[in-house]
């Protein structure tokens, strides 16, 4: 397993380089333009000068090379400088966003806390709710609990967040006035009162996001449990007198985890990637909002960097999922 992991990590390097190239070419080909948000009152010659000042005058391969150097050589130096107080990166050009003209990584670092708190909490909440629902629904298939779970999760999944988000705002902020409709990113949790405030502003986005994730996870959990509940080894386990709890929670659950682990592993990068629509609706302004505004403004360095970080996480967590398969089912071997 260790050699497998190491081999995969080595393969990951060319993979990621290739992915970054594909992303770059894709963004190059896309027809949107960084000048789109500049008002029409700015004349065409000035726009052209602004484009050149952004570096768009240079050929594609040079710009890609510059990005590679800045991201893989300068940015790590900045990180080292930041940790050890050294000055390796002095005077070197970092990856600069076209919208803010500031280093992309600074903005990303600024955004990570709110994304992690909101989307991360939603994920944890969703996993904690979805797994028991999925297990029990499968165990008591076609009971009223199962039917209700199916109904709620399917309705929850088919209602898009641009609707459910606004709905909870209308109910809980406008009508009842319980929670703020706008997430305050300047709030710092220092004492009990600010903690309560933080909880209040997190309730609605977490609720909307968790509903989606719960629906998805519980469906996969239930289906996978159902597959395993009819297997011979379950009958054997029962026959040898094991209690129902042990049979279900130890034998069946472990064997049913493979699709669920996959879904969770696919989902964790999106915790960092943020939730675009939900973040927009509640103005959480995390990584998801950063990405969508960057795409709308055609801020190529920002989009490129964000998607690349995202790609690293995807590769990493898929590797973790593969390792977990082997742990869950020792018969799976990769060598």
């Amino acid at each position, binding site marked *: 397993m260790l050699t497998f992991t190491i081999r995969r990590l080595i*393969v990951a390097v060319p*993979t990621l380089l*290739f*992915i970054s190239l*594909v*992303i770059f070419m*894709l*963004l190059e*080909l*896309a*027809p*949107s333009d960084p000048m789109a948000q500049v008002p029409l009152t700015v004349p065409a010659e000035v726009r052209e000068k602004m484009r050149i000042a952004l570096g768009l005058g240079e050929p594609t391969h040079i710009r890609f090379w510059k990005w590679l150097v800045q991201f893989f050589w300068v940015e790590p130096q900045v990180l080292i400088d930041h940790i050890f107080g050294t000055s390796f990166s002095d005077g070197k050009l970092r990856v600069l966003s076209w919208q803010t003209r500031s280093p992309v990584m600074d903005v990303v670092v600024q955004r990570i806390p709110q994304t992690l708190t909101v989307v991360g909490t939603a994920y944890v909440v969703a996993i904690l709710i979805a797994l028991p629902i999925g297990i029990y629904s499968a165990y008591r298939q*076609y009971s009223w609990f199962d*039917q209700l779970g*199916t*109904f709620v999760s*399917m*309705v929850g*999944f*088919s*209602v*898009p967040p*641009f*609707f459910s988000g*606004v*709905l909870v705002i*209308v109910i809980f902020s406008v009508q009842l006035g319980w929670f703020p409709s706008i997430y305050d990113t300047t709030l710092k949790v220092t004492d009990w009162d600010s903690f309560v405030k933080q909880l209040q502003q997190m309730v609605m986005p977490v609720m909307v996001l968790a509903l989606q994730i719960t*629906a*998805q996870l519980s*469906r*996969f959990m239930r*289906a*996978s449990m*159902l*597959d395993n509940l*009819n297997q011979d080894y379950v009958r054997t386990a029962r026959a040898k007198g094991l209690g129902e709890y042990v049979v279900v929670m130890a034998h069946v659950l472990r*064997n049913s985890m*493979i*699709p669920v*682990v*996959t*879904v969770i592993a*696919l989902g964790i*990068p999106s915790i960092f990637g943020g939730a675009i*629509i939900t973040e927009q609706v509640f103005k959480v302004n995390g990584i998801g909002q950063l990405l*969508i505004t960057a*795409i709308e403004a055609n801020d190529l360095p920002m989009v490129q960097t964000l*998607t*690349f970080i*995202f*790609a690293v996480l*995807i*590769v990493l967590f*898929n590797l973790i*999922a593969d390792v977990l*398969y082997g742990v869950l*089912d020792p*018969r*799976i*071997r990769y060598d």
Partner: protein
Amino acid sequence: MTETTQTETPDLSTARSQWQDVWQQFKSHRGALIGGLFFLIILFGVVVGPWIYWNNATFVPTGRDFIKLRDMRPIYHGLWDPSAKVNWAYPLGTDNLGRDMLARLMFGGRVSLAVGMTAMILALVLGTFIGVIAGYFKRLDGLLMRLCDLFLALPLLPMILVAAVLFRESLSLSIGPEAGVFVLIVCLIGITSWMPTARIVRGDVLAVKEREFILAARSIGTKSGKIINRHILPNVLSPIMVSATLGIATAIITESALSFLGFGFPPDFPTWGRLLNDSVDRMTLYPERVIWPGVMISLSVLSVNYLGDGLRDALDPRIRGR
């Protein structure tokens, strides 16, 4: 879904064929029957509805009629609010431009269901194929899964922009603007949503192919193709079915997001997602305008879900025996 139509014509010459068993089991699944019935009703409504219904989905009244006919409430609204503007000719009322809601709902359903089903089937076929191949043939695993990583990492929006530039013009010239957009949207949603299915199926295949019965099959010289078809696929069917039901909902909603961003169908072309999207701003004033498209999306997804449940049970020989 194609299997259900096959099962409706059982072979009567043999006493009990395999498909007859499947049909018997399927029939005994109450949820599946109700789901199927609902799905047929919805399908009938959106396919036949616009032909027999008297109002046109894109007609905008003009002149004095405009003020009279816009913002009409659904007829049931008159039950609790006698002063409401209702008219029996417009059962579900009209929108802010005086277009008939029921007509738009039916017409929009055609598009949404067509996009949802085709995109889902495309994603499913692609995902299952790649997942099974990657899980079963170790040599292809690395390559296919890296491809999967690549697609997962690509941002959807720039991809749509690129696709629109490259293909929209030529597609709309060869098969017409609406059909061109349809093909483009379906393909885009399809090729950007097969990855989870592929990864999930591959994970299951990795586990299933180490089981004893596969070893047994292989030891008697069964070919790989046959092992996959007869032994592996039936055992990974349930996650595929879940992906299918979730996939329809995702496809319908993704389509609405695309139209919202200006990459979808022409703006006077209603779809459920777009109806929902357009009405969110007036949610408190005219709740019916969000409720109906929302209910239709949910109902379709629910009915497909139950159909899938029944189908999976019916196709599982272990359950069928009971």
